[in-house]
């Protein structure tokens, strides 16, 4: 008797679940937002190649034009009338989280060289009482991403004091379904076609290359080719394309180690749990020069063993927006503008240590 009852209830459940599953997979939004600016690297949900090769030249490839100014771009003066991006997307017509203000987001803690400034300091465009950031302060307009964000905001017609920052403490928050707490999110996120099914990506604002960081006494520092790396214990932070590089390109013979974030991965490197940390070259240089260097001894504590060239993996960083956001086109127009007028290159030259002296791995 009990079996009959159970079967009846189970059948009822199946009916209900079936009803759920049957409803609307076709209802998912697929329309591509109209791109006003030339978007060669537009991350189309289905067709985009793994690495958009036609992307407009990003700062890494752009010829170095002599730009004498070393000051961060002063975005305090609203120059809406002069900005072509603001003409394409007049700011009165933008759909924003907060009326007439831009709400931007990045990860907390915010790491150099992407972010700069001092969280303790009160910046003129910062709300009263500080913003409670850690390590760096996006309101400072210092650091590559902060400066780029304010340059984009300016191109869209927003002054520096019309920009608010929200904190993103969990990586997954940025792509969880539902309404986003930000207009756009910038946190060294690589553009991937699969990811573009869940969110909108802007055109790339940075080309990033991977490298291997190691402590100086370790044998791994003598490695010159990708094959040399295979026998060492390698680690990376979760959710990074660095991990994909280890798994797909290096294919080590040892177990790959993955840590929750770069800070923990660095701890593992220091604790000899891994021989080499795979991380993008700019972050590696920051770790080498700021986080691992103790300045007490003349010898460097860590070294960037080598970097991986374009054939191994290139990541293009894009800004994350809500899926099918009407803002995507406007952000792209702004990026195109700051790229064309040299602002992006200026920011690049100011904040990014290229690491050109670091050798490439042989195939």
């Amino acid at each position, binding site marked *: 008797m*009990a079996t*009959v*009852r*159970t079967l*009846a*209830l189970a*059948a*009822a*459940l199946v*009916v*209900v*679940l079936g*009803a*759920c*599953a049957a*409803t*609307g*997979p076709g*209802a*998912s*939004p697929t329309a591509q937002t109209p791109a006003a600016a030339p978007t060669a690297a537009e991350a189309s949900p289905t067709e985009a190649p793994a690495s958009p090769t036609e992307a407009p030249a990003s700062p890494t490839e752009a010829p170095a034009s002599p730009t004498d100014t070393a000051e961060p771009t002063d975005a305090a003066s609203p120059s809406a009338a002069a900005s072509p991006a603001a003409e394409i997307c007049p700011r009165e017509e933008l759909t924003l989280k907060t009326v007439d203000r831009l709400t931007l987001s990045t990860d907390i803690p915010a790491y150099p060289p992407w972010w700069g400034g001092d969280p303790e300091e009160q910046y003129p465009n910062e709300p009263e009482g500080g913003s409670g950031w850690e390590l760096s302060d996006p309101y400072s307009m210092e650091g590559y991403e902060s400066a780029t964000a304010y340059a984009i905001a300016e191109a869209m017609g927003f002054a520096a004091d019309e920009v608010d920052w929200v904190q993103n403490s969990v*990586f*997954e928050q940025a*792509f*969880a*379904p*539902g309404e986003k707490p930000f207009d756009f999110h910038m946190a060294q996120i690589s553009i*991937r076609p*699969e*990811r573009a*099914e*869940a*969110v909108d990506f802007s055109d790339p604002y940075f080309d990033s290359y991977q490298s291997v960081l190691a402590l100086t006494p370790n044998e791994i520092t003598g490695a010159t080719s990708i094959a040399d790396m295979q026998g060492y*214990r390698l*680690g990376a932070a*979760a*959710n990074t394309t660095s*991990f*994909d590089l280890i798994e797909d390109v290096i294919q080590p013979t040892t*177990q*790959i*180690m*993955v*840590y*929750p974030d770069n800070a*923990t991965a660095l*701890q*593992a490197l*220091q*604790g*000899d*749990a*891994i021989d080499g940390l795979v991380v993008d070259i700019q972050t590696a240089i920051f770790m080498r020069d700021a986080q691992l260097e103790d300045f007490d001894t003349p010898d460097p504590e860590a070294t960037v063993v080598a970097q991986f060239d374009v054939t191994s993996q290139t990541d293009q960083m894009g800004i994350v927006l809500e*899926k099918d956001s009407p803002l995507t086109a406007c952000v792209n127009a702004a990026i195109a503008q700051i790229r064309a007028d040299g602002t992006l290159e200026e920011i690049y030259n100011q904040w990014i240590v290229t690491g050109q002296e670091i050798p490439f791995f042989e195939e």
Partner: protein
Amino acid sequence: MSGVAPTTPPELLGSRRSRLLGRMRPGGVLVATASTIVVFGALAYLVVNSPGWSRVQQTFFNPERFADSFPDIAAALLVNVRMFLTAEILILILALTLAVMRSLPGPVFFPFRLMAVAYIDLFRGVPGILVIFLLGFGIPGLRLPGVTTDAFVWGLVALVLVWSAYVAEVYRAGIEAVHPSQEAAARSLGLSQGQSMRYVVLPQAVRRVIPPLLNDFIGLQKDTALVSFIGVIEVFRRTQIEAGGSFNFTPYLVCGLLFLAMTIPLARFVDWLAARDRRRQFAGTGAR
């Protein structure tokens, strides 16, 4: 071993399932079915017609991502299985030792009791993740020659340390639940203190605590995910990697289902074991 003893009243045999359904008359089945359809149907209607459903469905119930991520996640689950099976064996041994140490009577054994109590207080009191971090990063950092730096090993050791403390308390509860007269009777028959513990107290104690032991075993299974924090790519980390690579949460669903596929059969097994035990106890000595 012929199943139910004829003398046992049927109410006492109530399995978990029949209690879920209550004492229903035949007509009650129809009402229960209808009511189930209405309630779950209403909930489903509400969810499916919410404005964000199509996005949620794409993000959490994407069949393509499900198929893509399933093999990798299932393979990573084997790391957890290997870990919790090894750990459980070590835990059962270590915890029993601790519980017996704690139950030793008399002033001579005071230092042993003290050690057991200190151990249990320490490892039950600190968060498991802390022990995992300390061992996982601390021991390789010592650079001791000949000592492994394998995070899997140190994660496993940390889980054994923490869970033994819990399990020791479960054993102790079982030992204390055996009536003192049992031991007194054993001693009066000429068994030594050790013998009466081994042959009289422990068999009864362990049998009583099998359900809570398996409960802790399920807890341990889920705790293996914590070892991901020191670098081991186990099922949770692999799931996160799959999710982060595609910005899709479906891999979490895969992970959850795989865990349920392990834990639900185990829970039913515990129920069955408990029911069998109850049958045996009520069956009296003659029924065996």
